[in-house]
């Protein structure tokens, strides 16, 4: 007997339906509880994301000025081109059209458009003229972005550095002062309707952008130009590889000019090899040669191992030290120590250094700022190279006394000369005005510094630095001609020289310390022939610009000098 279909009683059917409905309600209630109570945060976040949009507000990077308020770095508004690939009907045709306006190939553009992204940049920060004929095409749009512009082009390139595509500082002052220059971008939250259109800005959630801070440098456009012109002339005249010039206020450490040749234009960084971006005035080391005798002589005088008029036997220009024959370019017999300095006798200086000893020479070299970073507010400063005395060979004392076996940066050499100009005080160089005096440290007594000034004046009046003389002004300084190391042989090169001159003017009331260094000059090689004339031109023109006249009373010069270190931001200093 087959079973027929099961028949439930009406009451059972009612019970089943009620159970199903109850289960359904319970499920819905549980789900609601889950969403509203347990997963509240997650769903709220999703809803907010759908109904609100955060818009980043553009922030302007701070402007950089020179000491007189001339603009050195500023922002300009330029268009950037973007694409929304889904809205483009024919991507290949679009790529063809765009490639005729932009410096990108058609193939590259097609690849970009087919990457499957909702939004892509086609070209950022482009010349507005390139946009003619592109603007009205569907799926393509422009946004205005801020681009860094350097109106003085290459004049301050190595100091200012440059920024990246998103305006982040990558080199130079732009990098060092990134935090102050960049500012803080703002934000605004916008409420959206069901179609994704903005209803109203949510005023309570507005965070205004905070503009980047402006910077006022100690550098002076005119002095920088003077130094650039003189350095360029010296490098081209001697067919050298390059050169460096530094002009600074010796008393407070303010850098007035810092030039590296060949120049570098930060508006077109891609046209230079990265090595061309480097500020060699602070990053590169060289053996200073005879300019370092300033340190040896000052240390010996301070320690009373020699006196300015004490007679020193210069051995007629030939002298054996630790198995090596040392020569002088101008053979001399017994001469007073001031002539050892004036005529840059290696033998005389080595003899004086031997009275001083390695520990004291190393100690003074460190005190003058060698072997460690000076702390200038620029990135990439090199500490130079001054080995510990335990690692010195028998010949090291003699070598270091005349500026060999030691590596320095051009800035270190300029700061060391400033110690003499500053009557024994070592200052920390700086490029951005900050309203406070830079730290300083006493290295020599005033008496020693004054004696050194006298001897360095004699270098220019009687000795190797005659071509550094400036009519109407007293000049103190020292020449240097150092052989470079031949990278092939590891020995001193017979052809490659670093020729330099470092000094200060006016010697009786120093206003400016100037260093000129020429890298591998051809034919003429002596610092007194190659670098000293450039020093004289920079000194003469800079003093003229600063309204320092020949024979001007010391008090007036001192007054003008004071202004160099105390310029007020915005309006600059009235010199």
């Amino acid at each position: 007997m087959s079973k027929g279909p099961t028949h439930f009683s009406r009451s059972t059917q009612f019970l089943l339906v009620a159970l199903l409905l109850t289960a359904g309600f319970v499920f819905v209630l549980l789900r609601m509880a889950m969403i509203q109570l347990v997963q509240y945060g997650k769903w709220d976040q999703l809803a907010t994301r759908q109904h609100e949009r955060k818009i980043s507000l553009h922030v302007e990077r701070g402007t950089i000025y020179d000491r007189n308020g001339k603009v050195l770095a500023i922002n300009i508004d330029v268009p950037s081109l973007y694409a929304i690939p889904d809205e483009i009907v024919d991507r290949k045709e679009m790529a063809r059209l765009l490639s005729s306006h932009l410096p990108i190939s058609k193939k590259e553009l097609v690849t970009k458009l087919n990457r499957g992204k909702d939004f892509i940049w086609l070209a950022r920060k482009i010349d507005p003229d390139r946009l003619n004929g592109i603007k009205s095409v569907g799926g393509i749009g422009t946004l205005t972005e801020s681009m860094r512009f350097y109106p003085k082009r290459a004049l301050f390139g190595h100091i200012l550095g440059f920024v990246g595509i998103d305006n982040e500082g990558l080199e130079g002052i732009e990098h060092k002062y990134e935090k102050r220059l960049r500012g803080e971008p703002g934000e605004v939250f916008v409420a959206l309707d069901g179609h994704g259109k903005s209803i109203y800005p949510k005023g309570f959630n507005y965070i205004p952008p905070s503009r980047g801070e402006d910077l006022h440098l100690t550098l002076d456009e005119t002095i920088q130009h003077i130094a650039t012109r003189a350095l360029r002339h010296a490098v081209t005249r001697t067919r050298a590889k390059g050169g460096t010039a530094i002009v600074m206020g010796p008393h407070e450490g303010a850098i007035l000019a810092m030039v590296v040749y060949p120049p570098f234009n930060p508006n077109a960084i891609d046209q230079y090899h990265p090595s061309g971006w480097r500020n060699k005035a602070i990053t590169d080391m060289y053996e200073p040669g005879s300019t370092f005798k300033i340190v040896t002589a000052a240390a010996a005088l301070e320690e009373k191992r020699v006196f300015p008029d004490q007679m020193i036997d210069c051995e007629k220009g030939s002298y054996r030290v630790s198995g090596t024959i040392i020569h002088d370019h101008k053979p001399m017999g017994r001469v007073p120590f001031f002539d050892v300095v004036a005529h840059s006798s290696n033998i005389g200086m080595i003899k004086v250094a031997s009275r001083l000893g390695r520990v004291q020479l190393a100690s003074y070299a460190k005190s003058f700022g060698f072997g460690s970073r000076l702390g200038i507010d620029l990135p990439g400063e090199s500490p130079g190279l001054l080995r510990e005395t335990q690692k010195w060979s028998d010949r090291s004392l003699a070598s270091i006394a005349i500026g060999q076996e030691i590596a320095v940066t051009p800035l270190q050499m300029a700061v060391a000369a400033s110690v003499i100009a500053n009557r024994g005080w070592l200052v920390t160089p700086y490029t951005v005005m900050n309203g406070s005096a830079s730290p300083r440290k006493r290295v020599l007594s005033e008496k020693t510094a004054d004696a050194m000034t006298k001897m360095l004046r004699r270098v220019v009046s009687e000795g190797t630095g005659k071509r550094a003389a400036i009519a109407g002004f007293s000049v103190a300084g020292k020449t240097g001609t150092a052989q470079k190391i031949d990278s092939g042989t590891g020995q001193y090169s017979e052809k490659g020289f670093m020729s330099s001159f470092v000094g200060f003017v006016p010697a009786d009331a120093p206003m400016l310390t100037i260093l000129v260094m020429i890298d591998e000059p051809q034919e003429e090689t002596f610092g007194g022939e190659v670098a000293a004339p450039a020093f004289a031109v920079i000194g003469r023109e800079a003093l003229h610009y600063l309204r320092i006249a020949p024979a001007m009373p010391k008090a007036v010069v001192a007054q003008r000098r004071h202004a160099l270190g105390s310029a007020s931001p915005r309006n600059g200093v009235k010199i």
Partner: protein
Amino acid sequence: MTRVGYEIQEMQRHKKKLMKLHKELLIEVESLSALDRIEERATSLLAMRPAQPEERIYIGRDVELSGR
């Protein structure tokens, strides 16, 4: 009130426009006054040359200066 509101908005737009113009002019001035450019124009177009030291005369007002 509404009219004043519109006027303020209009003036703010005008101010923004003027500030943009000011910035553009500032950039133009700074670019055109770059010293290497001035020097190049002065020497090539106007046949000028830098004054030599012996051509300079210093005139003292409140300080005693040498004649030349």
